[in-house]
C-alpha cells in the first residue's frame, strides 16, 4: 500500500509539473502550426510569471495577476509577430531576443519595484489560485485505490491545472473542427494556397501568435500564482525549451503534446522524488540524467531514429508572394 501511495504522489506531482509545460507547449502549437517558429516561449512565460506575481501582489487578486500575465505575454508575442510577419525577419533571432529581454527586464523591474532580490512579494491566499476540491473528494479519500486516485490525483489542484488539461481537447477541437483551425493549419503548410483562397496570410498568423501569447501568459501565471506564491527570478528554468521539445516530440499535435508533457513532467517528478537514491537493477542514477533526458530524447527524435518529426512545411520562412 505504501508503494501505491508513493506512485500516486509521484503522479500527483507529475500533473503539477507538467502543467506549465503543457500550457507553453499548446501555446507553441498555435504559432508553429501557422508557420511561425517560436523559440521565445521561455521568455513569454517568464514575463507572464513576473507580470502575474507583480499584479497579484499589488492588487491582491489572482485574477488580476492572470490578466496582466496574458497582457504582457501577448505584447511580447506581437513583437515576435511584428518582426517575423510584418518585417519578415529571422524568426529564430527574434525568439532569442525576446528571451533575453524577458530574462533581463523581469529581474530589473522586480528589483526596482519590490526590492526583494528579483522576487515579487509572497502572495496571500487571495492572490493565488488555490486548490479546488472536487465534489466528494474528502468523502471517498479512504476508499482504496479508486478513492485515493480521485482525491489525491484528480482533486485538489488549482483551477489552472484543470484549465490546462481542458485546453487539450479544446485545442484539438479548434484545430480540426473550426474554420480558424483549418486556415491555421493551411497557412503553416502552404501560405500561397491560403493567399489565393482570398484569406490574409498576415492577419491569420497574427491571430496565431496572439493565441500563443495568451497561453504563455497562463503558463506564467500558473508558475507564479499556483505552483509558487509569487515570482522568483528565472523561475521558468528552461521549461519553455522543454515545452518546445515536447511540441516536436508530439509532432505538433495536441493530444500527443499532452502525453509528451506528462512524460517530461514525470521525469522531473521522478528525479525530485528519487533525489539520487538507488534504483533496482541499474543502481543509483544521477538526477541530472533525468533532467537531460527530455533533451536527449528530442535530439534522438529529430535525428529520425524514432519516427520522424516533420514540422509544418512553411515553418520558419517568411511569406513572400512569388512572381
Amino acid at each position, binding site marked *: 500500500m505504501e508503494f501505491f501511495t508513493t506512485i500516486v504522489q509521484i503522479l500527483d506531482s507529475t500533473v503539477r509539473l507538467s502543467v506549465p509545460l503543457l500550457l507553453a507547449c499548446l501555446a507553441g502549437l498555435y504559432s508553429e502550426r501557422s508557420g511561425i517558429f517560436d523559440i521565445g516561449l521561455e521568455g513569454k512565460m517568464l514575463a507572464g510569471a513576473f507580470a502575474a506575481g507583480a499584479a497579484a501582489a499589488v492588487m491582491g487578486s489572482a485574477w488580476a495577476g492572470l490578466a496582466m500575465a496574458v497582457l504582457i505575454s501577448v505584447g511580447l508575442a506581437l513583437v515576435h509577430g511584428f518582426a517575423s510577419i510584418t518585417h519578415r525577419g529571422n524568426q529564430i533571432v527574434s525568439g532569442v531576443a525576446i528571451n533575453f529581454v524577458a530574462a533581463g527586464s523581469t529581474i530589473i523591474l522586480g528589483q526596482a519595484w519590490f526590492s526583494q532580490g528579483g522576487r515579487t512579494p509572497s502572495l496571500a491566499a487571495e492572490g493565488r489560485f488555490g486548490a479546488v476540491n472536487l465534489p466528494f473528494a474528502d468523502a471517498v479519500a479512504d476508499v482504496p485505490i479508486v478513492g485515493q486516485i480521485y482525491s489525491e490525483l484528480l482533486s485538489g489542484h488549482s483551477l489552472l491545472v484543470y484549465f490546462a488539461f481542458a485546453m487539450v481537447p479544446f485545442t484539438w477541437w479548434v484545430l480540426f*473542427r473550426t474554420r*480558424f483551425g483549418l486556415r491555421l493549419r493551411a497557412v503553416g*503548410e*502552404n501560405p500561397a*494556397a*491560403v493567399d*489565393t483562397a482570398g*484569406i490574409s496570410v498576415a492577419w491569420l498568423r497574427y491571430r496565431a501568435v496572439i493565441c500563443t501569447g495568451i497561453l504563455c501568459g497562463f503558463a506564467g501565471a500558473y508558475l507564479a500564482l499556483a505552483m509558487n506564491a509569487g515570482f522568483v527570478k528565472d523561475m521558468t528554468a528552461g521549461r519553455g525549451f522543454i515545452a518546445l521539445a515536447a511540441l516536436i516530440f508530439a509532432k505538433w499535435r495536441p493530444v500527443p503534446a499532452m502525453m509528451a508533457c506528462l512524460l517530461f513532467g514525470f521525469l522531473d517528478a521522478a528525479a525530485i522524488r528519487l533525489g539520487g537514491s538507488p534504483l533496482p537493477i541499474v543502481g543509483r542514477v544521477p538526477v541530472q540524467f533525468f533532467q537531460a533526458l527530455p533533451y536527449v530524447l528530442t535530439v534522438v527524435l529529430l535525428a529520425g531514429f524514432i519516427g520522424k518529426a516533420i514540422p509544418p512545411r512553411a515553418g520558419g520562412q517568411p511569406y513572400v508572394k512569388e512572381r
Partner: protein
Amino acid sequence: MAEAAIELVGINKSFGAVHANRDIDLKVHRGTIHGIIGENGAGKSTLMSILYGFYQADSGSISVNGKPTTIDTPNDAIAAGIGMVHQHFMLVENFTVLENVILGAEGEPLLNTSIAKARSELQRLERDYGLEVDPDAVIEQLPVGLQQRVEILKALYRGADILILDEPTGVLTPAEADHLFRILAQLKDEGKTVVLITHKLREIMAITDAVSVMRQGEMVATRKTSETTVEELAELMVGRRVLLRVEKGDANPGDVKLAVRNLTVRDSRGVTMVDNVSFDVRAGEIVGIAGVAGNGQSELIESISGIRRALSGEVTLDGSPIDVTGTADPGELRERGMAHVPEDRHHVGLVLQFEENENSILGYHDKPQYLSGPLLNRDAIVADAKDKIEKYDIRPGNPMLKTANFSGGNQQKIVLAREMDADPGVLIVGQPTRGVDVGAIEFIHKRLIDMRDQGKAVLLISVELDEIRSLSDRILVMFDGRIVGERGPDATEGELGLLMAGVESKEAAE
C-alpha cells in the same frame, strides 16, 4: 452576341524594368473556351494573375460580365465569379480533398456543417461534370491529374462562372489531358467560360473557340479558332524576328565527345521530365535544343552536368561513362573537361554577394594555380580575373566590385569567361542570352562560334528560337521530355514552332 464575360482594356504591368504586360486588350465571350497562347515570358501568366487579383495592374481596367470591376485581391476575383487553376497547384498537400475545397469558402465558423455541405456539393459536381475524386483522399497521395481536378473543384465550389487554367496540361499525361479537355467541353456546355493559357498549339486547335496570341508582353492577335491555322498561330507566336545572323563557316564535326543514351529524369514530384532521350554531340559542332521552357531541357542539362540525379540511362564523356544515376559530381566533371553555363546565373552560376574575382573561380577554386597551400592565391585570382575581364570585355572592369552591381549581360559574361577560359572539351550552355542586352548577345554568340571552331563540342539550350537557329549546326526539338525531331540549321521557324508546340507533322494538327 451577349456582352463579354471578361473585358480587359489597356492593361500594363511592370516588374522593375521588365514590362511584362503592355497595353493589353482582351475580350472573352461568355460560354466559350478562349485560348491564350505565347512563348514563355510572353506575359500570359502575369495577365491572368492580374485578372485573379494576385497582382495589381499598373494601369488599365477590367470588366466582368459587362460591369466594370475592381480586382485588388483574389477575394474580389472570387466574388466576381472568377476561379483560377494555377500552374503550380495551390493545394495544402497534407489536407484532404474536402478540406482543400472548403478552405477560404467555409461559410461558417464551425466545420461540421460546411464539410457536410461541401460533400453533397462535390457529389453534385461529380455528377454534372464527371469530376470524380474521393473527397476524403489526402492530396499528396493523389496523382497529379487528380490534384488538378481538385483545383477545378475548388473554383467551381466557389461558384466560378469563369475558369482560368494556367498551362494545365504541363503535368498531365496525354490521356489525362484528353480527360481534362472533355471536362472543359462539358463546363462550356453548362454555360461556363474557360480561359486556357498554353503554349501547345494542339490544345488550342482541339478545344478552343477563339485564341489570342501574346508575344513579348503584347497581345498581337485574336482569331476565331475555326478561321486560323497552326502555321499562322506559330508564326504569330514566334514573330517574324530579324534574325541575328552570326558569321560562321561550315561546321567540321569530329569525334563524339558527349553521348547521351536513354536518359530518363524525374523531378521531386515524381513527374518524368526527361523521357528516354538519346543524342550525341561531336567535337566542332553546336547542337541546339529548342523547346518551350518546362519541356525537360533544364532537367536534361542539370543531369548531364552532375547537379541532378537521373533515374536511368547512360552518358559518356570522351568515351568514358559519367555516373549520372549515382555519384556524378560537378567538380569531377569539370576536371574531366566539361564546362557548364547554367540557366539560372543568379542562384546557380554566380554568388551575387561575391566580388567579381571570386566568381571568376567558382567551381575551379581548387585548381592549383588559384591556391597557395590552404590559402587562396589572391594575386593570381585577381590577375586572372583581370585577364578575363579584358578578353571578354566585362564592364565595369573592376574585379573587386560586388557581382550584384554588374548588369545582366556582364554577369553572364563573367560566367561565360570562367567556363570558356577553362578550355573544356565539352561546353554545356543554358540560356546564354536571357536578360542580356543586344550588344552583349552578339558578343556571346561570336564566342560560342569561336568555341565550336576551336573544336569544342557545344550543347546549347535556349528558349529563344532565333538564337538556336543562328548558332546551331544541328537542332533537336524537345517537347514533353522527349526529342520529337532533329532538323538542320536551315529549318524554318514555322517548322520548328510546330515541333515545339507538339505537332509532329502537319496532318496531326488537323
